């Protein structure tokens, strides 16, 4: 019975950074708490009233003390804050070569989608020693995706994407929890992260892989009529979407107001998502407002499908947009690990 864990295992590259910071804060917490308790007990005993009517020293303060217990904690706080920011930067900035995995939360399960197009429920397979970036959203209410062994967490917010990344360092299974209360079965919205070493992961991928996300997305691109406007031809009715991801595009109109000349936005997943769900929110400079592009809401494109369309747009290289007739080469799934 006494054999129970007190501290979670460290299974990602950032875990030890987080724990070191924890230990730093803990160490002065313990010192200060111990100091306060010792001082309390000492005063209560040593300075107790010893005979009737005795009063304490009638002093009112001490400037030096008052200044020092304002200044010293301020310094400690600033150090902690800064250290916290550094660890946070490690936690939120994914390396450029991270493998993409998409996660959709819904009452009460986690759906994961891999670059290969494979989908799972409540399980996340990741390679050992390779950075993995999760792009997370929700189909209904708020959820939060937490892997304690990795010390990472991000909320799943309907209507937008949040991201989280990690690099697993311990093979095997780790727990996965929903930490944002989401209704009846919240405590059953749990799962596991399976960390494979490189060879196993490749095997798992090839066994499970059917169609790449981007490939699926390409089919949707035609099926949803995107291609009728976003064709590869110069006289197309809409901007060409090739090599768009992570570029800055100039915009002329933003959420109800014309923008200053020179305004641009970074094309990330959230922007692509917004361009598809609410095309008129931001208009590419030179195109008319409101956009002629129909708003693709959930009745037209589900959250799962949307991930695939976006994966496709991300994968589009120069000259790869199909003309309106299917004739081009198959896209490469972006971020999928290459075989050796």
């Amino acid at each position: 019975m006494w054999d129970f864990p007190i501290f979670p295992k460290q299974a990602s590259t950032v875990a030890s950074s987080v724990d070191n910071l924890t230990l730093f804060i803990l160490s002065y917490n313990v010192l200060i708490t111990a100091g306060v308790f010792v001082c309390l007990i000492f005063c209560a005993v040593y300075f107790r009233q010893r005979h009737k009517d005795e009063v304490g020293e009638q002093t009112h303060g001490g400037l030096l003390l008052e200044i020092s217990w304002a200044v010293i904690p301020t310094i400690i706080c600033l150090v902690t804050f800064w250290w916290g920011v550094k660890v946070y930067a490690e936690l939120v900035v994914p390396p450029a070569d991270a493998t993409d995995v998409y996660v959709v939360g819904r009452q009460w399960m986690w759906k994961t989608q891999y670059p290969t197009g494979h989908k799972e429920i409540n399980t996340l397979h990741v390679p050992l020693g390779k950075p993995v970036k999760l792009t997370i959203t929700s189909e209904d209410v708020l959820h939060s995706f937490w892997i304690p062994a990795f010390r990472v967490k991000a909320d799943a917010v309907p209507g937008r994407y949040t991201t989280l990344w990690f690099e697993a360092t311990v093979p095997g299974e780790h727990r996965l929890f929903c930490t944002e209360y989401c209704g009846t079965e919240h405590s059953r919205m749990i799962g596991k992260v399976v960390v494979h070493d490189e060879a196993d992961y490749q095997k798992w991928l090839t066994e499970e892989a059917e169609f790449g996300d981007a490939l699926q997305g390409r089919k949707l691109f035609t099926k949803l009529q995107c291609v009728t406007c976003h064709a590869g031809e110069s006289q197309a009715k809409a901007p060409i979407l090739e090599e768009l991801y992570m570029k800055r595009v100039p915009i002329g109109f933003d959420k109800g107001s014309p923008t200053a000349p020179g305004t641009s936005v970074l094309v990330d997943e959230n922007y692509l998502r917004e361009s598809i769900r609410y095309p008129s929110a931001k208009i590419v400079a030179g195109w008319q407002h409101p956009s002629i592009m129909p708003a693709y809401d959930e009745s037209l494109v589900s959250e799962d499908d949307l991930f695939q369309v976006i994966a496709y747009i991300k994968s589009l290289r120069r000259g790869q947009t199909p003309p309106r007739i299917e004739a081009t080469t198959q896209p490469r799934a972006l971020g999928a690990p290459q075989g050796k």
Partner: protein
Amino acid sequence: MSTTVSELKAKGVPFVNNEPSKVTYLNHENTVASWLLTLDHKRIGVMYLISMTFMFLLGGIFAGIIRAELITPKGDMLSSDFYNKTFTAHGVIMVFFVLIPAVPASLGNFIMPLMLGAKDVAFPRLNLMSWYLYVIGAVFTLLAMLLGGVDTGWTFYTPLSSTYSNGNVMVVAAGLFILGFSSILTGLNFIVTIHRMRAPGLTWFRLPLFVWALYATSIIQLLGTPVIAITLSLLGLERVLGVGIFDPRLGGDPILFQHLFWFYSHPAVYIMILPPLGVASELVTTFSRKPIFGYQMIAGSSLAIAIFSFIVWAHHMFTSGISPYAAMFFSLLTFSVAIPSGIKVFTWLGTMWRGSIVNDSPMWFAYGFIGLFTIGGLTGLFLSTLGTDIHLHDTYFVVAHFHYVMVGGAIVGLMGGLHFWWPKMFGRMYNEPLAKLSAFFVFAGFNLTFFPQFLLGYLGMPRRYHEYPAEMQVMNVFSTAGALVLGLGYIMPMIYLTYAAFWGPKASKNPWGATTLDWTATDSPPTPHNFEGQPVVTEEPYHYKSTENKEHALAH
């Protein structure tokens, strides 16, 4: 009249007042109507105390049910739905109906005018109305629970609360909306009272620190509470009329709700904790028989906390996808509240140093308060630090942290205040050994309940979990065992204090030898109009003289 209970006990002198019974606020009228329609701040304070104790018992029962369910990892006692409704009820009742009004509405109402040398608060009718609003709000909330409960958590996050939950969200929201006005009106009343009704000579820097704490609290109540009223109204618009504000399917933004909610609910934490901080200052100086260390620092830090509390709300949202720059900004600002809180703890220790400390039961509660508040405050630093909060957010670590601050702080502070002022409020003394035992049970039980939860949180137990992994059971069992001890520590004073109020030995006017007007210029219990004549103040508070305490002059 300067001697303290323990000295009198030591001398074998009963610390009682054997004069024939006089007309007091308690006995001058005896009908039920004379209570329910009273404009007397003292009676209103007592009525708040009674209604809050009722809500506290209810919230406590819910807490007991939660802890019982969590003895085993499997959800074998309750259904998930019932469990979720239970913790929602526990949170709503404890936060809105107990912690927020705890000290200001009961002790604040009763004591603050006495401390000012005033006959009542500035707007006695408004004061009575506040109590009725409290009761109506409570009725709505209890009604919602009888109708089948609410399962959104006390935070009402959208779109769960606005679209997906099928509980009685709107009934509770209506109750809290009404209750909010009780809080706003009390804040307004207190601010005007403190500005306008101080006795001659009672300048701002002669105010007892409890009054400063209430003043700072009232500012938050007045400025913050309207925001939660607006937020609940918007929630209602979306839920009832389908206006898209928070649900992205309707074009809304769920994060907006969090911003609005915490814009009130973070400062609300300081509505809960500032008044007990003021109580602790009174206790520490009185029982150390020494002037408070750094009066201006303590008064100033109360105001600083009140102001800073408004600019840190997004520390509840570090994982919600807000911009990393916003997160950094709010993290930094959050540390700014840590400093004045730390200053308070250090000044209490400075006050005790070279004091002449009388270890009576109110001081025991003050020790417990300081200890728990210190742990609660310091563990907050893990959560204001970005690098660690990402891991700890929404886990049992947070649950432990805020119980240390809110229960260890607000409730233990309230208990200390009640033991301190009980002889003033009811003119009778309680059983001192029992009181010390209760203080001990509360402190020990509290730590046993909540300390393991820090470990659980770091280890990986999310909050609001009906079921949890088996390896986390041992610490949950500790926690539940602690809750039993803690419960005992709460029940005891309910019994012996109530007994004392009716049948305890009579207390003298100033059994603790305190120096503020509430003790020196009024009887225990006070007469219906508090003072005979207008008290005049001639010096700063907290001067303890070794022979007789200076009685404040009464000008007739």
